[in-house]
């Protein structure tokens, strides 16, 4: 079994995001970038499945600018066998990414495609689902547990009501939740070895995919500042304020 894992380069989750003054986006210059956190879970799970002898190869793929390759390199350092970097500059929407991944699936013929449930930068939560539709493959989203059984997967999903367990046929798409596992650290010797693992570079245009945005972004702005709280003297005052000022009761 072969597993393809899609990874995305995003602003590190610890960085305080700053909106550009002209409202066209957020500041990314000199900002620490990392792999999208649930994508780390996706890679970890694929490597675990391979280590358990249930998969033969793990291929990491990313779509993005030159530096996005760092995320593939990191995936290689924690156990992926080889990498693919589809080069695209500029804004990328989930539809374009899904179409590119579809082409990569046609080429690589994996049995499973893993990726994070959503990216922490645009929070779209669409790529996995769109890819599933394009390929006409079954999907299991928000996976917090994956059991590989012959030609089936038993997947536990994190849903609002609790946990849902489903069984789907392979080939399949799985999008991974943060609770799926604890990603391992890349060790220094493995980082060295990863530098020698192959990464295939492909231009998006060579895949024949139109990546031009379908959406028009109107404005990016900071969330409104929270107002300072006040202290009330007693319950009566609280009720009065909730009723007359906040108008919530």
């Amino acid at each position, binding site marked *: 079994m072969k597993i393809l894992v899609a990874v995305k380069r995003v602003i*590190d989750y*610890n*960085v*305080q995001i*700053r909106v550009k*003054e002209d409202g066209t986006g957020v500041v990314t*210059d*000199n*900002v*620490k970038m*990392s792999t999208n956190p649930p994508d780390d879970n996706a890679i970890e799970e694929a490597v675990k499945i391979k280590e358990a002898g249930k998969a033969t190869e793990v291929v990491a793929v990313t779509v993005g600018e030159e530096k996005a390759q760092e995320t593939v390199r990191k995936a290689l350092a924690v156990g992926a066998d080889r990498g693919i970097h589809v080069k695209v500059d500029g804004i990328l929407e989930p539809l374009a990414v899904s179409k590119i991944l579809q082409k990569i699936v046609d080429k690589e013929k994996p049995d499973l495609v893993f990726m994070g449930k959503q990216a922490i930068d645009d929070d779209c939560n669409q790529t996995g689902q769109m890819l599933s539709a394009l390929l006409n493959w079954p999907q299991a989203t928000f996976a917090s547990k994956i059991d590989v059984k012959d030609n089936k997967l038993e997947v536990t999903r994190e849903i609002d009501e609790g946990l849902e367990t489903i069984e789907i046929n392979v080939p399949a798409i799985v999008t991974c939740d943060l609770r799926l596992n*604890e*990603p*391992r*650290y890349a*060790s*220094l*010797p493995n*980082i*060295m070895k990863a530098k020698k693992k192959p990464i295939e570079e492909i231009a998006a245009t060579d895949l024949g995919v139109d990546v031009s945005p379908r959406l028009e972004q109107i404005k990016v702005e900071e969330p409104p500042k929270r107002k300072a709280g006040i202290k009330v003297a007693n319950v009566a005052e609280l009720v009065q304020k909730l009723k007359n000022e906040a108008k919530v009761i």
Partner: protein
Amino acid sequence: MSRESMEYDVVIIGGGPSGLSTAIKIKQLDPNLNVCLLEKASEIGAHILSGNVFETRALDELLPNWRELNSPIKTKVTKEKFLFLGKTKSLSWPTWLLPAVQQNHKNYIISLANLCRWLAEQAENLGVEIFPGFPASEILYNEDGSVKGVATQDMGIDKDGNKKDSFEPGIELLGKVTVFAEGCRGHLGKQLIEKFELNKGKDPQQYGIGFKEIWEIEDKNHEEGLVMHTAGWPLDNNTYGGSFMYHAENKQVFLGYVIGLDYKNPHLSPYDEFQRFKTHPAIKKIIEGGKRISYGARALIEGGFQSLPKMFMPGALLIGCDAGTLNMPKIKGSHTAMKSGIIAAETINEHLKENKDLSIYENKFKNSWLYKELYEARNVKPSFSWGLILGIIFTGIDQILFRGKLPFTLKHKHADHKTLKPANQMPKIDYPKYDNVITFDKTSSVYLTGTNHVDNQPVHLKLKDPDLPINYTLDKFDEPAQRYCPAGVYEVQKENDVNKFVINSQNCIHCKTCDIKEPSQNITWVTPEGNGGPRYGNM
């Protein structure tokens, strides 16, 4: 437990200006030497904080074609100001009356973090292997006592010291020469200074704490290329310190404050001095209407020539501010750190090729402009122990009339942890409330640093005696850690009328002030798990 090991010709600890300069210079001298560089931050530059007005002298020597290499050195200093601040008034000091070391017309306003990122690219292009996120946590020695290399931190240990599922053992990096370039008060450098008695016969090292904020200000207040320094208010005559304000590109100003850690009043809060400094009319009018976008703090070296330890030992070199090469009256340490790194590389090359002892570092250093610079600057800082006014008068005589050539050397008398007076003998200081426009609390400041440490890991601020803070330091010094820490790591909390000393180590921004100033030297800073600490952008 046995660890994996990797062998290199040169192992460098720390990706700041000195370590990166060493790496680049070694590869220039001999591309065949294997060089690796460890950095504890998640990427190069993420733990770098500096003013910074940059003198290019060392860079001109290291990479003479830096102007063609798309370097982040762009904003030339075009104008200078020096203000003495009173409580509401300010007096502008003519710049022609400043000593030559404080004149900056040939220098550039830069972000040192960005310079380091760029230097790292140059180093990687030359074949240096750079490993961010891997703190060196332990020094390894040969049987003959010489330094053999370092071990990186184990990853994936829980707070009780047990291995987690993600446990990844550290590895040993063995170098023919190991170069320690951790910056001010490096935790391994500290061990080396003690073990090899590198500071024997030297004055105690002197430190300061430096704060920096980056503000995006209104167009009308911004004057790209303007460098301004102040002395005076809010500090009293007996506390050493001052501010900087550098107008950088993109409508940003780099605003900062440095306070000598030899201050005496345990009630003093360096953080709050910086915050209230910004409310001075001369400062407020510039940043008003602007937005604070970054915050950070870091200890720095102030001891200079008299306190500079020996920089070589068997198997290793100690460079940059891990030793203490900052030039205090110049308020610059980047070019001197880089020069010490260049000398280290030349030393190592001769050591490996011609089998010369590492002690040749000493002579190379003594024959360099770095030595001359530090020698001539040596009397400025100690003269301020007589107070601001006498310090300025003496500095004028020493630097303008005699250009640092007076035939005597003033001494630094006390280590900084010994200078605090008992709390009941010193006045309490009533700091103004934060307005959340110009001044801010520590929590919202630390938030801007992007600091994070993986939770469930051992506390990396070790107490030699866990009861001392409450049993002794609280009573005698009103536990000054609550105030000298710029990140609110230390708190004294009352629980059922019992005082408790709390260490919020996840907030630590790796400034090392606690390791320096704690009056009983009860706190030891060690490396937390890799990738931890701040994520500074263009600091």
